[in-house]
């Protein structure tokens, strides 16, 4: 098969291509595939499986929190010595929390989200035959896959998986004597993370170079759909911040294995004073959060991009304030590099710097607010089709608001003193980056499933899935705010030791049952997803009447995306319900000359020749300003 993407499309090339097509074997097509659509599917399905695993872990520790004194023999059968007497071991509880966070943040919401939709949509929405470097793209997936396997394998280590929290703050993570979860499991965690970052960098470089170099004719930057803008900026964020994490991780590996003292100083543990002197645990926090904070935007921005596209398409309206949306994404991208210190207000960092970080942090709320208002304005006077994707996109907006607002509390250094490391934080980020991002991902899956698999998903099961998940997410995370306000710290194995905390037991039970409901609801999704791949209704070419380029490709996939020439783009992607046009959408490939009745002055971007032709046409057709008609 041809291993190189065909940058420009000539009939010759295309013929070569279809000949090569027949030689594909199972291995080159489904396993070591270099086709961006297949790689996207690989990322997606791996991401879904990892997501289900991480959700399962969360149910395990939720059961512990709801029934701290109860024994569940089943747990002992499943987990062996990690749950002696049917009760979770405190150290294993911390491992569960750690691995749940790691998998969700990195493997599901970074790789599963960006990996899937950047790979799928960048070439398809920009009009490229494939990614800039398909081979590197394939490597990116396999590095990711190895990272996943390595992370999961730690459950089979005697001392258990890494357990120092997903932020693995040293010295806890650096000293195997401090907890079992800092033994071999932590070594594996670190190696897995290095592989993951390698994967993410290869992906990111590919996305950026494809966006910059391989757009089809007419697709200038300001005609790109917001999805692409989001993926593009996300990739830049990742490229600039992930290497810092690797640097931090490598130093931690040195501290753990080679006796250096980057993060360690003045430690006395297990009856022995350690030789390390001169290091600082705070250094790790700086390095970690220099990635860690952009990371939460790496997670949420693709979700915002997807929801922009889904909301515009299904409201049958142009996204409100396209330019403002792009500029706010750019603003978030830039600002996200200078806010990391808000995770460290009470870590002993110089309080004055804390004040500075607080100012930058609250500024970043402005572009986020603009995005929210623009979503609302897009829905206003729309003609909303409630596809499951649209439901999830609206759900995202709701979570983004609720979770974003609590960020204003946490970004305020003074308020953070009492909220830091409590359940308020857990509630905040599970809404704003957990639930919102996963809803963005689900919206994307429902919306582009027809593009990925050529089949439709069952809409009614989608509705069921949405309403159960939406309700469950709020039921789980809303009460947590109040626990946080009562000073209940996160990562506590049980709240039985404190009278003030044990009165939250009934709330904890409620949360656990809501979480179980939410988890069960995902069965509806999983069944829908996997059965629709094989038995779903066959999709039409453009099932959502969408404007973007991916819907001009044939339903049956082919390597190279378009059978003939790559289409040319003439307009922005959001000409929905344009007055004067008969249908409520005009694909990007429709030239202005075919839509004389609906062209608006700014469509011509100052092209005088075109304006003159339009004026002439208007006079000939006695065209009344058509906006009036629609009202």
């Amino acid at each position, binding site marked *: 098969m041809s291993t190189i993407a065909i940058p420009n499309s000539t009939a010759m090339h295309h013929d070569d291509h279809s000949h090569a097509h027949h030689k594909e074997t199972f291995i080159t097509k489904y396993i070591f595939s270099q086709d961006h659509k297949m790689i996207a599917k690989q990322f997606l399905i791996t991401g879904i499986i990892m997501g289900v695993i991480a959700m399962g872990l969360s149910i395990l520790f939720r059961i512990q929190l709801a029934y701290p004194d109860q024994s569940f023999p089943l747990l002992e059968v499943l987990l062996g010595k990690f749950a002696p007497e049917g009760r979770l071991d405190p150290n294993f509880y911390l491992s569960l929390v750690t691995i749940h966070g790691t998998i969700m943040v990195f493997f599901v919401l970074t790789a599963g989200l960006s990996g899937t939709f950047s790979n799928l949509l960048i070439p398809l929405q920009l009009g490229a035959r494939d990614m800039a470097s398909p081979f590197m793209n394939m490597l990116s997936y396999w590095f990711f896959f190895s990272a996943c396997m390595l992370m999961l394998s730690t459950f089979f280590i005697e001392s258990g998986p890494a357990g120092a929290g997903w932020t693995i703050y040293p010295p806890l993570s650096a000293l195997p004597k401090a907890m079992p979860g800092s033994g071999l499991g932590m070594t594996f965690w670190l190696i897995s993370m290095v592989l993951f970052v390698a994967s993410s960098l290869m992906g990111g470089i590919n996305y950026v170079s494809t966006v910059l170099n391989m757009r089809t004719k007419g697709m200038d930057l300001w005609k790109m759909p917001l999805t692409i803008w989001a993926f593009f900026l996300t990739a830049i964020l990742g490229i600039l911040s992930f290497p810092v994490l690797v640097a931090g991780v490598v130093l931690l590996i040195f501290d753990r294995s080679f006796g250096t003292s980057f993060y*360690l100083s003045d430690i006395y543990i297990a009856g022995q004073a350690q030789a390390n002197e001169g290091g600082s645990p705070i250094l790790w926090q700086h390095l970690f959060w220099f990635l860690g904070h952009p990371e939460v935007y790496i997670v949420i921005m693709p979700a915002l991009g997807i929801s922009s596209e889904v909301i515009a398409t299904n409201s049958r309206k142009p996204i409100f304030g396209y330019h403002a949306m792009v500029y706010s994404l750019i603003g978030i991208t830039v600002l996200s590099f200078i806010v990391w210190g808000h995770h460290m207000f009470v870590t002993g960092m110089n309080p004055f710097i804390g004040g500075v970080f607080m100012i930058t942090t609250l500024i970043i709320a402005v572009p986020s607010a603009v995005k929210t208002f623009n979503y609302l304005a897009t829905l206003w006077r729309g003609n909303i089709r409630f596809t499951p994707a649209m439901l999830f996109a609206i759900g995202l907006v709701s979570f983004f608001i609720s979770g974003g607002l609590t960020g204003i509390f946490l970004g305020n250094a003074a308020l953070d003193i009492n909220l830091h490391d409590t359940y308020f934080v857990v509630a905040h980020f599970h809404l704003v980056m957990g639930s919102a991002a996963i809803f963005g991902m689900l919206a994307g899956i429902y919306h582009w499933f027809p593009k990925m698999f050529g089949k439709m998903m069952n809409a009614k099961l989608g509705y069921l899935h949405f309403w159960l998940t939406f309700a469950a997410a709020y039921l789980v995370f809303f009460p947590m705010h109040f626990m946080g306000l009562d000073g209940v710290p996160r990562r506590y194995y049980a709240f039985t030791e404190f009278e003030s905390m044990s009165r939250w037991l009934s709330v904890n039970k409620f949360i656990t049952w809501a979480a179980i409901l939410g988890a069960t609801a995902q069965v509806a999704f999983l069944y829908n997803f996997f059965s629709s791949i094989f038995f779903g209704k066959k999709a039409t070419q453009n099932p959502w009447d969408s404007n973007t380029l991916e819907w001009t490709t044939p339903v049956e996939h082919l390597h190279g995306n378009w059978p003939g020439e790559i289409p040319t783009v003439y307009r922005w992607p959001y000409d929905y319900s344009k007055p004067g046009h008969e249908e409520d959408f005009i694909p990007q490939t429709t030239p202005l000359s075919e839509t004389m009745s609906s062209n608006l002055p700014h469509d011509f971007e100052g092209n005088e020749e075109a304006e003159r032709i339009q004026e002439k046409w208007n006079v000939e057709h006695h065209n009344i300003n058509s906006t009036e008609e629609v009202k």
Partner: protein
Amino acid sequence: MDIKKYMNKKSLLSLFAIVGLSLQQVMAQAAGVAEGVDKNAGLGMMVTYYLLMFLVVCVFIGIVGKVLQVYELTKQIQGKKNGIAWDKVNGVFFAIALVVGLYGAYWSYTVQGAQILPEAGSEHGSKIDSMFNVTLIITTIVFVITHILLFLFAYKYNYKKKRKAYFYPHNNTIEKYWTIIPAIVLTVLVLLGFFTWRGITNVSKDQMASAIQIDVTAHQFAWEVRYAGKDNENGRKNYKLIGSLNGLNNLGLDLSDKKNYDDLRVTEIVLPVNKSVRFTLGSQDVLHSFYMPHFRVQMNCVPGMATYFQFKPTVTTAEMREKTNDPNFNYLLYCAKICGGSHYNMKFAVRVVSEKEYESWFKEQKLYVTDDMKKEYQLAMKDNVVANDKNKIALNN
């Protein structure tokens, strides 16, 4: 999909066979465990029971789905439009979700909100509380308004075939407003927060010196608290001395520093009301977080680096018991930074009392450096004279 090639009956059957066999094996194993231990006897039954229950729910949902499908099909056959208008149904669901959700939020605010921390027991804590209230009011207003708009739009503008959406790509004036207004509100919050924060953390040298000095050392999984004694200065520590003096020196006090000799060892933090206290925090092993939520106090304990928190308690424990109407109320210190297996159980008692009570309590506290320690230290110093070089090693034991 080409993958369908691989989905023929044979491969499906073999897949089922594999899954079935492995399930059987797992069950056998579970049964093995069950035979060995009596308490696991009903386990298989229980799992089967729950699985069956789940299957019943699935079948029920499937049946409902089929009924809906049949209903829609018959409608279509009768020539009516596509049966159920799902756009409308979902729109109505959003309206319901709005009402139920807002009521739920209100319920949560009032019922669960009543369970949160009582008003702050410290001077700066009251400032934090009023800051919190301002932020809460602003965010709640935004939360309610945006959700009303979001869900009402979803309800009101659901799809109708005849209608066309309003083409409204942008409006620079509106966009300017909703960029500038949040920016102004946030600026106000930032300024308020910044000054509150500086007020808490920026303590002048005089204030530092006049406060009661308390030194807290965290380790897995307890707190060691040392009051500065008469000179109001804590003596030097060195982590290499921890466990020296025959194991008596649990903090690694450097006995060559005379300031150590009047320091007090306490089992409870007792603070006089309306007097500043300055905590110097440290850790012997991993990160811990010194968290006293009732005072709105939190600061991490970092090995190798001292951190500080100075504040003034304003409400005594007795007064707080009255205020909260809870005779068992106690101020608490616990750990808020993940620190290992028993992170969840690092309690230390805190009591705020009148100045008089404090004085009498203070007098009763024992010295940190006991006579035994002094003896050991003198012994070690003798060795020191004999073999000056070995001294460090001796102290390290």
